[in-house]
């Protein structure tokens, strides 16, 4: 039998092979990941809840199914975990907020149903920035999550726990949510693959809403191939989500390109100027060179309105959030203040005490942007910028198959480095928010490792494509991974003190 640390290094694809060939059971795999969590998570703090008992039961049932030739899907028996803003019936869903500390969901999110229907083993819930607002996971009410590559650095956010757990080999794949880069940026910081599908690809039913017109659920995995497998499970039209889009293809089976001959990759000049750190710029230029060597044609494209993107994003996402988070009022569920004299005070104190600083900042911002007298200047202007961006991206994508940009302007920064300056934190979302504003799919793929202050840190590149082309983006990413071998065997868990070792 393999040592658990070896199992935890395996990709979903490799685990499936092991299950299918009978080399391993789901029980063994599940135990290995639970052992990995036990060994590492005290340091990393990626998990907010670990479903030890039920995971082992589910694994046993999966093995039983496999024995009887009745597996539910290819991924039957593969462990999976969820960012703690997706609902699992009978389980606490906190959104990393004091507000929902004890909220037990009475229903399953559509993605949860789909994971269960595929026979996947739910390992638990993952840490995040409160209500998915943040880029460092430092806004969690239950403590920060650390980057497995360097424990004094952030894993990114808001799906920090998701990326950290996958990077550290505590779960082979997990689902995050992405409103302005919340899957892709932590994937980049943690050296894993993160997918933000086109808006409407994955049902939002049962995902606690942040910015309803921007939110999408997507997988974080070790490889593009694994991400495609996860997309096959979670994508699809849902009658419970009126914004889910039946016209988007749901088969993500990769095309195994021998080269990238015939593929055109556009690089927007606006994304390689001021604000981009040298190591990241060098990494993306190097990746472009590798893509070119694989046969792709690299061209320059232009998205002039990208200069409005960040402001538009923060206005729109905060406006929607201010309304979405109004339901957390202390009346029916969630946190309620202990002392109040009247209804007004109950509302005020429950929300004041239940929400963290960043969440309150965004609610204030959004409320202001929607106020009468200001709505035209802020909310409507932001919608106009959004329309411009949509138009410019669709034009750019007429001349190329994918748009290549950085995911984040820097590598993972140190804990506490940006907490004092929200504006600087927001600036880090520049390259990711456009995919949400336009609704287009984008993938974050590790492309290089750089040294910073003695730490080896991963850098991700972003590939963005047209609405129906996520499968093609993943195929390009897969080709790049297989041919350019950007990971070169470097994994963070090999460098963890007291972590998994054989």
């Amino acid at each position: 039998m393999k040592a658990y640390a070896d199992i935890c290094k395996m990709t979903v694809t490799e685990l499936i092979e092991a299950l299918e060939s009978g080399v391993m059971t789901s029980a063994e795999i599940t135990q290995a990941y639970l052992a990995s969590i036990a060994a590492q998570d005290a340091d990393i703090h990626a998990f907010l809840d670990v479903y030890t008992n039920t995971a082992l039961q589910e694994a046993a049932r999966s093995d039983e199914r496999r024995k009887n030739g009745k597996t539910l899907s290819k991924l039957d028996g593969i462990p999976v975990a969820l960012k703690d803003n997706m609902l699992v019936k009978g389980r606490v869903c906190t959104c990393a907020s004091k507000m929902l500390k004890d909220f037990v969901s009475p229903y399953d999110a559509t993605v949860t149903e789909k994971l269960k229907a595929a026979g996947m083993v739910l390992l638990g819930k993952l840490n995040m920035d409160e209500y998915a607002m943040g880029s460092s996971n430092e806004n969690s009410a239950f403590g920060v999550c650390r980057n497995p590559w360097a424990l004094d650095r952030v894993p990114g956010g808001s799906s920090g726990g998701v990326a950290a757990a996958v990077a550290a080999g505590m779960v082979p794949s997990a689902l995050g949510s992405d409103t302005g880069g919340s899957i892709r940026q932590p994937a980049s910081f943690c050296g894993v693959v993160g997918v933000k599908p086109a808006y409407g690809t994955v049902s939002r039913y049962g995902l606690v809403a942040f910015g309803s017109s921007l939110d999408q659920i997507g997988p974080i995995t070790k490889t593009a191939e694994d991400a495609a497998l996860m997309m096959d499970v979670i994508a699809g039209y849902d009658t419970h989500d009126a914004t889910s889009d039946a016209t988007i293809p749901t088969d993500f089976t990769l095309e195994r390109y021998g080269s990238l001959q015939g593929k055109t990759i556009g690089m927007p000049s606006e994304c390689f100027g001021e604000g981009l750190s040298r190591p990241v710029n060098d990494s993306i230029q190097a990746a472009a060179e590798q893509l070119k060597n694989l046969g792709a044609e690299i061209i320059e494209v232009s998205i002039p309105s990208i200069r409005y993107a960040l402001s538009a994003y923060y206005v729109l996402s905060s406006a929607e959030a201010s309304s979405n988070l109004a339901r957390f009022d202390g009346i029916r569920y969630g946190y309620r203040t202990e002392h109040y004299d009247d209804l007004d005070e109950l509302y005020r104190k429950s929300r004041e005490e239940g929400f963290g600083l960043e969440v309150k900042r965004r609610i204030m911002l959004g409320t202001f942007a929607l106020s009468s007298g200001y709505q035209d200047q802020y909310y409507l202007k932001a919608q106009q910028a959004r329309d411009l961006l949509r138009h410019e991206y669709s034009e750019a994508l007429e001349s190329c198959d994918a748009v290549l940009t950085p995911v984040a302007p820097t590598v993972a920064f140190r804990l506490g480095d940006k907490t004092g300056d929200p504006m600087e934190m927001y600036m880090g979302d520049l390259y990711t928010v456009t995919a949400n504003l336009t609704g287009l799919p984008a993938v974050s793929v590790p492309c290089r490792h750089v040294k910073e202050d003695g730490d080896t840190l991963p850098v991700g590149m972003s590939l963005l494509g047209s609405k129906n082309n996520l499968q093609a983006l993943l195929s390009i990413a897969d080709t790049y991974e297989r041919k350019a071998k950007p990971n070169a065997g470097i994994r963070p868990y090999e460098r963890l003190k007291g972590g998994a070792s054989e």
Partner: protein
Amino acid sequence: MSWEMVIGLETHVELSTESKVFCSCRAEFGAEPNTHVCPVCMGLPGALPVFNEQVLHHAAKAGFALNCNVHHRSRFDRKNYFYPDLPKAYQISQFYKPICENGWLSLQTSEGEKKIGITRIHIEEDAGKLLHDDENGTLLDMNRCGVPLIEIVSEPDMRSAEEAVAYLRKVRAILTYIGVSDCRMNEGSLRCDVNLSIHRPDEPFGVRTEMKNLNSFQSVERAIKAEYERQVTAVEAGEEIVQETRRYDQKTGKTSGMRRKENSADYRYFPDPDLPEVRLTDAQMKAIKAEIPVLPDARREAYMQDYGLSAYAAEQLTSERWLADYFERTVKTAKSAVSVANLLQGEVFAIISLKASEAEKAGTAAQEGEASLPVSPENLAKLSDMLVEGRVNSSTGKKILAAMFEKDRDPEAYAEQNALFAVSDDAVLKNAVAAVLSQNPAMVESYRRGKPTVEHALMGKAMAETKGKADPERLSLLLHQALETPEE
């Protein structure tokens, strides 16, 4: 010059769809609290609304019936405010792009026909119900959360409480005709906000106040009169009217201020990102239009032409679809449409309103609509014929009708069993007349000396002599003949 009142109404109507507007919970009234609920209508985290197409159909149908411009595209917006009966802390409504605009309906007023403009009709979801309880404090019933509503906003075209009530009755008539709502005010499926201002004719409108959630025709009428008086008194005393929301108190019959405009909530309306644009195709519109039945105005005209009813009677009988349907079914087997109309408007309505006020006193719910008239049209037609033919007189008719309300029965058989048919046998009637005349010689004497009014009193006595069953016309004739015949 006197002060004229200017009234505009906002009417909230619950649509009678099977399920709620954004989830599949049942929308029916009166279930056990919190039994028709789900994550969506309870506003749980992660839940999303999905629009019920039946609501679109009903709202468009109402729009066509109220002569509106029904739009191919409309959209939902969020109206943000905190209140415990609103689980999401926003109401999904249509603010920027309502489904219907620019309609009208017509009223019969004392000065003839009057058109009232309809500004817009939009779709929205109802809120829950707070139940205040001494023992448990305030409890929340979420069954009503997400029940579909349309809000019909009128132009400020009404000039009296009577017109406002007539407008409401007409809205109710039309909506019940087209079957999109049962419009039961006692169950809250028809509620009304009144906007009222005063001015001198030919001067601009004054500042208006709004009275919310009036739930009976009577309270609408009384609230308007009370608020008009208040405004006139205030203005004549040199005070200014402030724009505000006022509450009408049924007990005191007065209105009192609730919320001033400057303190009013900023609802921060914005398009609901969870719901795509609502679309209606030409084909859908055509199909919906084709479903609209003959409406009250057209029916009223027909009743006047075909049955010879008065404008008033025709208006009354067409005010509700069930009533008009009932009238038409009754007329089919009755000999006289006018008699049926008189019977319905007279004795039948009297019994219904008596029962309603008895129920109100007893604190129970009165039967409404069709259920308030438990007599079959065939039986009512028979009674009408018995009256027309003089086989029962009107007071006996009343008795029989009361018995028919208790149990829907054949009036012929009932009159037979209880010996209620009118006595028209001349021999019997002549005996009664002779008996009365001989018992009251003084009255006979005064009649003959030139006091014809005595005849009335004698008629009453003669009727009593027959225990009220005499055919009144015949009896009256025989009495008159006897009085006019000189004594032998």
